[in-house]
């Protein structure tokens, strides 16, 4: 491995976008060197400019982007001023990209094999037959099952994980010197992400190649990278080897970011999540001082000037005036990012609640018809039905949170929509404090609607763009409770305070709010009528890490005050583990495990839970005790599965019994842990070791 000359050297790079008449700098004075054999992690939240940096390195900025200053030296050659036509001899052969969204990055009307072949024919001058053969080999290398069939498939015919494997094969086809990975696993499920990361690690090893891995996910960085650069609002704030940055960050932003990520095993009962107040300044609002100043808890007067990126030693650097104090441990950062205490004092009356459970949903079945054509319905032929939720029962006590975890296609959203009435369930009963809720939304009266509210994943789509925040909140009160006028205004103001926003947001429209602010409003709207049950479907998954923590704390606090039942849905085990009291794990529309949140991280686990836990990239170094990876793909929902739904991918499959017979529920009487498996709890405990090496 040659270590002398960097494959890529970025010097003082400043890139601007034209917005209206002005050129606004998206990244400023970036310095970065990547050597052969090195995997360099570039971490940043949305708006940090990480994708801009990746695209600048490729010299593929759009029409409105321009390199203002600095140089990009690739293998000793200055490429930043090369025109597009000249760059084509670099792209694909010397520098390759694996993008975030594999589906939209593949041409929908060409087979994936053909799309990989193009690279081989172009750069390696392979004749067609040889290229076709080589594609199959490449597909084998990226662990695609049935490589020949995949090569003949169109992108929409294969799963997201398979598409990303195709993209990786395409990027590696011509053995580039520099590989850029731009959030390659962000759109994938956690188990798929884990195996893709394994694959990337394995493929890169021993290659004569430098790698830049762009991500917002610190856990992924720990899994993969040698070195990390932290990007904030277009500036590199810290640059250090992996171990050092995680052991002792020397920039307050890095520290805040690390603290904001809920860690596996953390629970709300033990600690409030740390969070960084405020939000990333917009492009037009980036002043001349320290870029982090407005959110920094240790800012001084001097921070009105811009700190340089100072070298601490040969290996690391920080863009903070106070790095020396940080290095000597003189600033107690631990205290600084702790969320503001119990600021919330909602005077909205808490209703006396009866003995029954806040939410009791029994035997919910949700079915979707697939491709029911006009003629099939005319002929009264029963079309294929997809069972999205198969006989699931859940119960949530007042003041309790049930965390529902599952990957995409697990049926978690279908279950939530069935309970909320948005999709009528095929069967099952839904009771709120014993009061029965009709399965059909239109049959539910105002009272039932008020008692059950929902927070959606995407706040962009959940708020009416033509209504001000105040109108949205007051409308909710009027429609569900008949409250109007001054009383409605007072409650709306109170709620806005409760979600920690200034009162003037009441007069703003959603497009004037940031994503985090919109989600707060969506939450305010759900809680304003003091519902008995709130369903939150992935409420933080579209938000940045530093904003996520604030929202989670907020949900937690509101729920504590209102004492309502919360059904919290997420694919993120650490978040669910943090926020929930009870946890339900769902796979292919069936519950696999039910337990208290505190017991989730201890064996015995359901084998699926075990795989999920093992797949979560940890932000802590060296905490993984074992790795378990799921083989194969999620079965198609139309497939009829006998026995245990998980048998086709279960790493602990016993044998035929799993395929033939539905497993029993194994119950631990003392903890009420329930596992749906042919193994007994004792057997599972015997087989499994703790996944986290934490003192649980």
């Amino acid at each position, binding site marked *: 491995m040659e270590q002398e000359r960097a494959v890529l050297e970025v010097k003082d790079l400043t890139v601007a976008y034209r917005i209206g008449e002005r050129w606004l700098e998206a990244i400023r004075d970036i310095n970065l060197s990547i050597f052969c054999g090195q995997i360099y992690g570039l971490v940043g939240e949305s708006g940090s400019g990480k994708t801009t940096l990746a695209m600048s390195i490729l010299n593929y900025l759009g029409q409105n982007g321009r390199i203002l200053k600095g140089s990009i030296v690739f293998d000793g050659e200055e490429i930043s001023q090369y025109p597009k036509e000249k760059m084509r001899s670099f792209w694909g052969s010397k520098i390759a990209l694996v993008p975030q969204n594999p589906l939209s990055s593949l041409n929908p009307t060409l087979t994936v094999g053909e799309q990989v072949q*193009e690279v081989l024919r172009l750069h390696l001058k392979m004749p067609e037959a040889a290229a076709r053969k080589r594609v199959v080999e490449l597909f084998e290398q990226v662990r695609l099952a049935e490589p020949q069939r995949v090569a003949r498939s169109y992108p929409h015919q294969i799963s997201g994980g398979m598409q990303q494997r195709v993209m990786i094969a395409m990027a590696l086809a011509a053995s580039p010197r520099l590989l850029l990975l731009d959030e390659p696993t962000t759109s994938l499920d956690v188990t798929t992400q884990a195996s893709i990361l394994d694959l990337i690690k394995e493929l890169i090893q021993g290659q004569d190649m430098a790698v830049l891995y762009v991500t917002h996910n610190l856990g992924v960085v720990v899994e993969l990278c040698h070195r990390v650069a932290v990007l904030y609002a277009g500036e590199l704030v810290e640059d250090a080897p992996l171990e050092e940055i995680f052991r002792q960050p020397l920039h307050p932003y890095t520290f805040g970011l690390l603290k904001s990520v809920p860690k596996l095993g953390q629970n709300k009962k033990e600690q409030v999540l740390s969070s960084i107040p405020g939000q990333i300044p917009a492009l037009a609002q980036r002043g001349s001082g320290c870029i982090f100043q407005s959110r920094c808890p240790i800012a001084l007067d001097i921070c009105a000037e811009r700190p340089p990126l100072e070298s601490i030693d040969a290996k690391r650097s920080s863009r903070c005036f106070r790095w020396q104090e940080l290095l000597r441990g003189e600033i107690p950062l631990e205290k600084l990012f702790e969320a503001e205490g119990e600021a919330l004092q909602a005077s909205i009356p808490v209703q006396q609640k009866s003995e029954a459970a806040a939410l009791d949903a029994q035997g919910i079945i949700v079915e979707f018809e697939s491709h029911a054509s*006009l003629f099939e319905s005319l002929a009264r032929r029963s079309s294929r039905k997809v069972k999205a939720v198969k006989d699931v029962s859940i119960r949530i006590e007042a003041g309790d949170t049930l965390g529902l975890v599952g990957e995409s296609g697990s049926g978690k959203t279908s279950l939530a929509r069935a309970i909320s009435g948005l999709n009528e369930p095929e069967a099952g009963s839904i009771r709120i404090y014993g009061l029965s809720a009709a399965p059909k939304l239109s049959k539910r009266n105002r009272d039932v609607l008020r008692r059950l509210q929902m927070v959606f994943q995407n706040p962009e789509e959940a708020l009416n763009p033509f209504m001000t925040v105040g109108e949205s909140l007051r409308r909710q009160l009027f429609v569900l409770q008949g409250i109007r006028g001054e009383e409605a205004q007072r409650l709306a103001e109170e709620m806005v305070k409760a979600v920690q926003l200034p009162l003037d947001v009441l007069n703003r429209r959603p497009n004037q709010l940031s994503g985090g602010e919109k989600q707060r409003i969506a939450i305010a709207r759900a809680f304003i009528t003091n519902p008995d049950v709130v369903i939150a479907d992935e409420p933080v998954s579209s938000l940045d890490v530093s904003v996520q923590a604030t929202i989670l704390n907020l949900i937690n606090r509101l729920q504590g005050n209102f004492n309502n039942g919360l059904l919290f849905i997420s694919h993120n085990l650490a978040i669910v583990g943090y926020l929930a009291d009870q946890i339900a794990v769902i796979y292919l529309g069936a519950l696999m495990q039910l337990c208290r949140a505190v017991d989730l991280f201890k064996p015995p686990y359901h084998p699926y839970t075990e795989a999920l836990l093992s797949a979560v990239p940890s932000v802590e170094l060296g905490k993984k005790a074992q790795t378990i990876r799921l083989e194969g793909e999620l079965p198609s929902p139309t497939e009829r599965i006998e026995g245990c739904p998980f048998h086709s991918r279960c790493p602990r499959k016993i044998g035929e019994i799993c395929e033939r017979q539905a497993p029993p529920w194994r119950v631990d009487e003392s903890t009420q842990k329930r596992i749906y498996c042919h193994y007994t709890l004792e057997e599972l405990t015997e087989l499994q070791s703790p996944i986290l090496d934490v003192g649980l």
Partner: protein
Amino acid sequence: MVKYLLRRFGFLILTLLITSMVIFAATQLLPGDVARVILGREAGEAALQALREELGLNDPVPVQYGRWLVNFVRGDWGKSYSTKSEIRPLVIGRLRNSLMLAVVILVISVPVAIFLGVVAGLNENKWIDNVVSIASLAVVGLPEFVTGLVLIQIFAFRLRWFPANSSIRPTTSFLEALPMLILPALTATLVLLAYIARLTRAGVIEELKQQYVRTADLKGLPYRVVIFKHVLRNALIPTITVIAISMGWLISGLIVIENVFNYPGLGRLMVFAIDRRDLPLLQAVTMVAVLGFALSNLLADILYAILDPRIRLG
């Protein structure tokens, strides 16, 4: 694919059934007493009654409709009230003329329109795009009788390249008719051109934004391969299907152009039938027109399925 096409074909049959009912209702039931329409205001009650009996007008409506539909499907389209001749050969002859004109229009307009649209789309908001867009919009704003007359002035009277009158006979062969088809085809082209070009432009601009174009670029593929192999393959799908759909309009909707050039197509036959209150003729022409529209829609669906694997392989 087969299932998709069967479904589309099913819809086609359904569409035809429903429109045939509407046509039947509009022409046979609404205008009041058909017998009086035929025999005129002075006819005696006895004669009217006899004719009603002969035409089956005293039967229940569904029976009348069923009889009419079965006859139509069997090819018995009846006799024209006004010319007293068999309707079918008349309509089929006009259909042939309309198809000939439609083919010439497509051959002229499609390559030009797609070329202009692609060039405009690839150069979005540059001068060449603006020229194409403004010119095509200016042309589409002009009514056909204006453009038609201008073309006649230039090409028929001044240059004497093509005749001004396109009244071909049923016996005229395609090659003999061709010179007479050029001017009406050019007139229709001017209408169609802007439409197809703008659609193509929009398709190209939309596809250029897609991430797979970035992937193709970043493979290092030459620009022309990125455009021809990757972008156009997707960008032209809507254009091609819209061209297929517009076949229906070309067959029966060119009423103004046919009139300007005195061209014996289906459109003029329809106007003639309305003029003379020739109900059986009108029914036949309308049914053929509807069939044209429905078939061109089916053609569009088939093309769509062939071009887009997401439809084909669902």
